[in-house]
C-alpha cells in the first residue's frame, strides 16, 4: 500500500525527534526515498530548526551578563545582611 504524503507530514516532527515506532519509521523512510516533495519538506523543516537553535539567532544584549550579576550581588548582600 502506498503511504499518502499527508501521513508523512503528520509525522515529520516525531521523525525528527526519532520517536517513531519501527514500523512507522520503515514506512516513512520507504516513502521518503521515492518522494522528492516529502523529503524536501523534511529537510527544510530540519534545517529551519537547526537555524532556530543556532547560537547566533538569539544574541544577548551587550553588557547583559555583568548587569545581571551586579543586580544579583545587591540581592545577595541584602540576604546576608538580613541574616
Amino acid at each position, binding site marked *: 500500500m502506498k503511504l499518502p504524503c*499527508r501521513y508523512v*507530514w*503528520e509525522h*515529520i*516532527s*516525531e521523525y*525528527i*525527534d526519532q520517536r517513531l515506532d519501527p514500523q512507522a519509521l520503515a514506512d516513512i523512510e520507504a516513502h521518503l526515498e521515492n518522494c*522528492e*516533495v516529502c523529503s*524536501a*519538506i523534511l*529537510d*527544510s*523543516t530540519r*534545517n*529551519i*530548526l*537547526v*537555524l*532556530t*537553535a*543556532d547560537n*547566533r*539567532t*538569539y544574541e*544577548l*544584549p551587550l553588557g*547583559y*551578563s555583568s*548587569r*545581571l*550579576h551586579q*543586580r*544579583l*550581588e545587591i*540581592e*545577595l548582600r541584602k*540576604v*546576608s545582611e538580613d*541574616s
Partner: protein
Amino acid sequence: MPPTMESEKELIARILAGDTELFHELIRPYEKMVFVTIFAMVRNEAEAEDGAQETMISAFRHLKSFRGESKFSTWLVTIAMNEGRRRLRKAKGMPTDSLDEDKEEHEGDFTPAALTDWREIPLEALEKKELRAKIREAVEELPELYREVLVLRDLEELNQEETAQALGIKVNLVKVRLHRARMMLQKKLVPYLKSANPAKGFFGRIFQ
C-alpha cells in the same frame, strides 16, 4: 561543558548553607537560556533583560523549594516561562488565547509548504542578519501556546517530559503543539530560505 546534576546539587547545598556568593556560579550556564525564553515571549529586549534578572532573583529566593526532582535547568526555565507569561499578561492587560485542550489533541490538519529549494544549510545564510531576524520574527508570530512549546523544545532543548513539566501540560499535548509550531515555522520561513540559496533548485536536482 554543562554542569553535572551532582555538581549542581552540591553547589545548591552550599548556597543554602550560607555560601550565597556561589549563586553566581550556579546560574552562569543558564544566563542565555533564561533571556531567550523570556525574549521569545515578550519580544522586547529591555523587558526580557529585566525579566531575566527577576527570574534569577526569584530563583535565589526560592532555592530552598527546589527539591531536585527535576533538573535545576528545568526548574529555572519554568520560573523564566512564568515570568515571561506574567509580563505578557501585564502588557496585554488580559489573559491571552486559550485553546480547548481535548479538541486540540484530535485536530491534525496542518499542511507544510509543499516545495522548497532549500535543503542544505548554506553557511553564508547563517551569516545573514536578515535571515536570523526573519527566524526570530517567525517564532514571535507563533500563537503563544505553540511558541512556548517550541521555545522549550527546540531552543532550550528540553525533552518532552521536561517541557510538559515546565508548562504543566500533558506530554501528548507537547507533541501536538510542537508539531504544529514546527509546521507553522516551516511554512513561514521557506519563502525566505529559497532566496537564501537560489543556486541549487529543487527541479535542478531532479533533472540533473
